[in-house]
């Protein structure tokens, strides 16, 4: 595949591969995505906005320059504490696998990123992986991130990314460390087309973590645990879609991960409210909620690809990989898209539908 090197969320010539439930594969323009929807379908996207999670600064103990990439968090409300990955001097122009290691790090060390300062509170069993605490009041930390941070970026995109390059149209709560990039396809026009098709649209918020560290040992630990929030309106929409035998279509791997983590045992519905997705979806996973997934084009050795093995058989995915190459699909976050329907032999039709009680409290008026 070809690396998509320009930060254009919706290139007019974007391609779409559809892996149908029967294993058949078709190639279309992504512009006709909506024609694959049925009137009873529910499309669910991740509306997390992306933090400028790459910070250039100084490691005070060594006096050396470092790049710190925020990579994980405990909750949406805590703006102070993060799991982070530290690189030695340099930036995204060097491939992550070629980046120098950071200086020797110890708990208690301090970092300075312009107006923002942080303390290394704990080493996390790897010379690059740390727990980090920003100093100051929440407003100072927010302002510091807004002005010192840059979007996390990889060498295949040449020009520095701006925040508008990585926020999807529907970006809301700034809690993701990298963009939920399957959602780049979403425009306000597409949302209207989904409505016109009779299908429904809903969102959840999932703090998408980093996709690559450049270190094989760390990469094997991805994805890290990710907090998510499912509004009661979305849980209700899932229940209604199930009742009308509609399909649940996840825009992106983060959505599938949150939905499957929040799944109500054997009923195809999801719990509303906050959770932390700890699961890994792979060939042995039984999908309880998600009927189809729209995602990017993924190489076979990635965690994203492992997730697709829950949707389709290895032989179909091998064929799909071959066709992605032979049809010159573009890969990475600004690349083309793949719609994977859950294979017929992997259907787990829910036995009964229970009413989900919203865990959110009703608000005012």
């Amino acid at each position, binding site marked *: 595949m070809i690396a998509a090197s320009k930060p254009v969320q919706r290139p007019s010539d974007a391609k779409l591969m559809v892996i149908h439930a029967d294993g058949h594969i078709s190639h279309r323009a992504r512009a006709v995505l909506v024609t694959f929807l049925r009137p009873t379908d529910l499309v669910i996207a991740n*509306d997390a*906005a992306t*933090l*400028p999670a790459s910070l250039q600064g100084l490691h005070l103990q060594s006096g050396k320059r470092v790049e710190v990439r925020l990579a994980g968090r405990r909750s*949406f*409300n805590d*703006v102070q504490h993060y799991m982070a990955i530290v690189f030695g001097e340099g930036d995204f122009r060097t491939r992550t696998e070629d980046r120098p290691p950071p200086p020797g790090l110890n708990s208690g060390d301090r970092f300075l990123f312009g107006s923002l300062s942080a303390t290394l509170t704990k080493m996390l069993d790897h010379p690059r992986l740390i727990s980090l605490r920003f100093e100051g009041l*929440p*407003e100072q930390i*927010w*302002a510091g*991130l*807004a*002005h010192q941070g840059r979007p996390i970026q990889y060498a295949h995109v040449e020009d520095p990314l*701006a*925040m*508008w390059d990585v*926020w*999807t*149209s*529907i*970006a*809301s*709560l*700034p809690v993701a460390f990298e963009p939920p990039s399957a959602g780049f396809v979403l425009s*306000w026009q597409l*949302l*209207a087309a989904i*409505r016109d098709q009779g299908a*429904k649209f*809903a*969102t959840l*918020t999932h703090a998408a973590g980093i996709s690559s560290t450049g270190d094989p040992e760390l990469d094997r630990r991805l994805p890290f645990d990710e907090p998510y929030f499912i*509004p*009661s*309106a*979305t849980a*209700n*929409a899932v229940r*209604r879609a199930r009742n*009308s035998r509609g399909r649940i279509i996840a825009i992106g791997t983060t959505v599938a991960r949150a939905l499957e983590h929040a799944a109500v045992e054997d009923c195809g519905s999801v719990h509303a409210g906050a959770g932390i997705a700890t699961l890994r979806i792979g060939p042995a996973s039984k999908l309880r909620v998600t009927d189809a997934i729209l995602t990017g084009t993924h190489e076979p050795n990635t965690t994203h690809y492992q997730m697709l093995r829950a949707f389709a058989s290895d032989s179909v995915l091998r064929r799909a990989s071959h066709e992605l190459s032979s049809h010159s699909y573009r890969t990475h976050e600004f690349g083309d898209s793949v719609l994977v329907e859950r294979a017929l032999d992997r259907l787990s039709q829910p036995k009964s539908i229970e009413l989900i009680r919203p865990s959110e409290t009703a*608000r*005012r*008026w």
Partner: protein
Amino acid sequence: MDMEMTDHNELLRRDFDGVRVAITGGTSGLGLAFVQELHARGALVAFVARNPASIERIARQYAGTFAIAGDVSRKDDIYPIAMQIVGRLGGLDVLINSASSLGPVPLVPLGDTECEDFERALATNVLGPFRLTKALLGALTASARQGHGSVVLNVSSDAAINPYVQWGAYGASKAALHHMSRIWNEELEADGVRVMSVDPGDMDTPLHAAAVPDADPASLKRPATAAHELLLILKSVLQETIRAHAEISAEGSAS
């Protein structure tokens, strides 16, 4: 008048309890009056202005409000502002675009208006609200989908309609803001977001003083009065968006 206002406020106290509101131009004139009034009525308020010293002073005065330093006329400031607004408030129900630029000061006929002054009026009065609303549209529609209501209130002027001489840069930019609001309101109807453009009337504000230095302040509306009037409208529109969502949800449940 003051007596009446106090009674009114007493009655309406806390009626914006928990509503998440962002206000641009929050340290002066009508924007500041919105901060004061919404803070008093229980809203969660984030406000934006250029001068760090002014925003910190206002934030201290109205404890619990969030001050964000930024210039809405600058493209590069928009996403840092938007991120801080949604991050601090945990979402967004109402955006009030109140920051305004007069263009040339003192006012001059269009033929004498410097291009840079006209561009500044457009950047602050049209492009700023366009960019900030676009960056916050995800948060606003998320609020609408969750039944919390969603409104964008753009502060326009009667100069957007009437061809007042010497108000060319300001009037043309406010006319553009007014029309943009009308179109956006149509486009966002199905997403549950209302976009309004309102004329607050001639107020006793620093902007008006710069435009008409010899005006008698007693003949002008107090910004607090204008804010009070506009919040009545805002509240009813916000409630409409909440009701509309509740009706759609009820239909959906029945099906």
